[in-house]
């Protein structure tokens, strides 16, 4: 059985058909990329998975079960974590606090026990810190541990956002343009982390990405979409060399010259 599946997903905003009967299948433990020109509907797919938007048709299946009726905050409980295209960190908190926030769904306390800060709450806090520390170690964030996010450079903020998603201990990770705004070196680090995540943590990754080099380097399979329609889905090289994909990205004439 496929790990994650989109079946005939459609959504329209007023007269705009943002996604039109898109299908794709993501296998357990693979890195899957969604590519397409600007406005093709890539991020919209993520926002639909997160239930920020309601699908007008079709369904998402996680391990065979539909997630289309969950509340937005329940998506995290299903083990789906994500990052955002324009970093959505909690800016006035430290890096550590941001990571610990990723642990929110693991909390076993409530406001009353927390007010009294009884022992289980204290132990839970310490456990969260241990976990956050593992992620700090994994992503080399030691130097920024206690700094406010707002004071960090863009590339580090991106890493912190990835770390926060990892702190949720997801089984499925959605990365929205993870390399945008990163320099070469940072992108390479990210590629290493991705393969570590895949091999050591067994996380399945879906990402939206424009950097074709990065896609080639990291991704197992690719879905190309344009104008809300799936063009082709398949092995990375196969999709990247597909003439329809080239046409969508580069326009008609350039394909002939390429």
């Amino acid at each position: 059985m496929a790990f994650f599946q989109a079946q005939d997903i459609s959504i329209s905003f007023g007269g705009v058909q943002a996604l039109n009967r898109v299908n794709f299948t993501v296998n357990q433990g693979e890195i899957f990329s969604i590519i397409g020109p600007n406005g093709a509907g890539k991020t919209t797919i993520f926002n639909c998975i997160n239930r920020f938007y309601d699908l007008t048709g079709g369904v998402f299946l996680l391990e065979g079960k539909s997630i289309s009726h969950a509340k937005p905050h329940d998506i995290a409980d299903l083990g789906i974590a994500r990052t955002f295209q324009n970093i959505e960190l909690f800016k006035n908190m430290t890096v550590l606090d941001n990571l610990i926030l990723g642990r929110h769904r693991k909390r076993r306390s409530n406001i009353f026990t927390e007010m009294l800060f009884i022992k289980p709450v204290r132990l839970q806090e310490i456990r969260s810190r241990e976990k956050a520390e593992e992620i700090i170690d994994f992503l080399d964030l030691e130097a920024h541990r206690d700094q406010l996010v707002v004071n960090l450079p863009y590339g580090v903020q991106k890493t912190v956002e990835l770390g926060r998603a990892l702190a949720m201990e997801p089984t499925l990770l959605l990365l929205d343009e993870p390399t945008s705004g990163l320099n070469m070196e940072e992108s390479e680090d990210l590629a290493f982390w991705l393969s570590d995540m895949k091999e050591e943590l067994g996380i399945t990754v879906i990402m939206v990405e424009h950097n074709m080099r990065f896609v080639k380097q990291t991704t197992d399979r690719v879905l190309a979409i344009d104008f809300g329609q799936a063009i082709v889905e398949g092995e990375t090289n196969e999709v990247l060399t597909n003439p329809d994909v080239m046409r969508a990205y580069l326009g008609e004439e350039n394909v002939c010259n390429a």
Partner: protein
Amino acid sequence: MRFLMKTDYYQDIRIFKYRSTFFWYVALIIGCLLLPKVVDEYLVSQFSFICIYAVAAVGLMLLTGFTGQISMGHAAFFAIGSYTSAILTSHGVPFLIALPASGLVAAIVGVIIGRPILHLTGLYLAIATMGAAFIIEEILVRWESLTNGNMGFLVDPPVIFGFNFDTEASFFYLSLLVLALTLLLAKNILRSPTGRAFIAIRDSEIAAEAMGIDLPNFKTQAFAISAFFTGIAGCLYAHKIMFINPESYTIVLSIELLAIVIIGGLGSLHGAVFGSMFFIFLPQLIIISKDYLPTFIQDQTGLQPALFGLLIVLVMLFEPMGIYGKWLKTKFYFEWFPLYKKDSFKREKKYQKAERH
């Protein structure tokens, strides 16, 4: 410069970061306990008011400063706290039960009001809470069998286990204790998952939701806990001034509370206390310093409110982070003494904030 060598995760969580901080807080408490011996009764009573307002401000701070939800209706919760305690104690319920009960009733009303309107944001929420407060104010006026309407209500000084808090000093100790407990409870919330969820909602609702934070639920919790503390403050207030009527709880009080948390510095518990001190003390200071001004200024009518207003404007102009911000900067200056740079607190301006996620 001071470095903290952390060897244990608990060091991250504890209330007092350094041993010296603990020492200073103990010193502060001892100082407060000695206060009634040093200053006159009138000032002690002003200190009681500072404590009372600070308790309410901590409540509003949790909602506005930490969760990012503006409320212009907190006078209503203050009033509910006052009336609950006044009614309960007049029926012979002990103060020790009436005090938490007034917070509880305020919290329940907070949930009833908050739940349907908390999906509103910013100014829209502010106006909605104001509307809710109007309703409660009107109920207090009209429900005469319970509240005595505009005639008002006489309230006795609090009595705990037979001890009557009818002197200024004893009442000050009582309100100080309540303030200390309030700060402790609020601090505990803020250093645990719920508090972090509040701040997360303030900084990015969309990301908070993606982290699995149930927005309506946590906003309601913030509203309830905020109303709870404000209700407690209202209870103390009723027993302090010993006569309550609906006129004490108008929109002006709501705005005053909001001003306290903004002047004190949004997003800090210190700010709630600093703001209350500013609000209670400054008018007094102006009155005292008036004697030292030239006569032609002294004789101006409306000098005190005008100066007070001017000072608020100045604080907002020169210290947008409030008094707590100034406090942080001063502390930072001494900690880093020769290396202090003026721009250390300057935030980078971001222009590329898109609506897309």
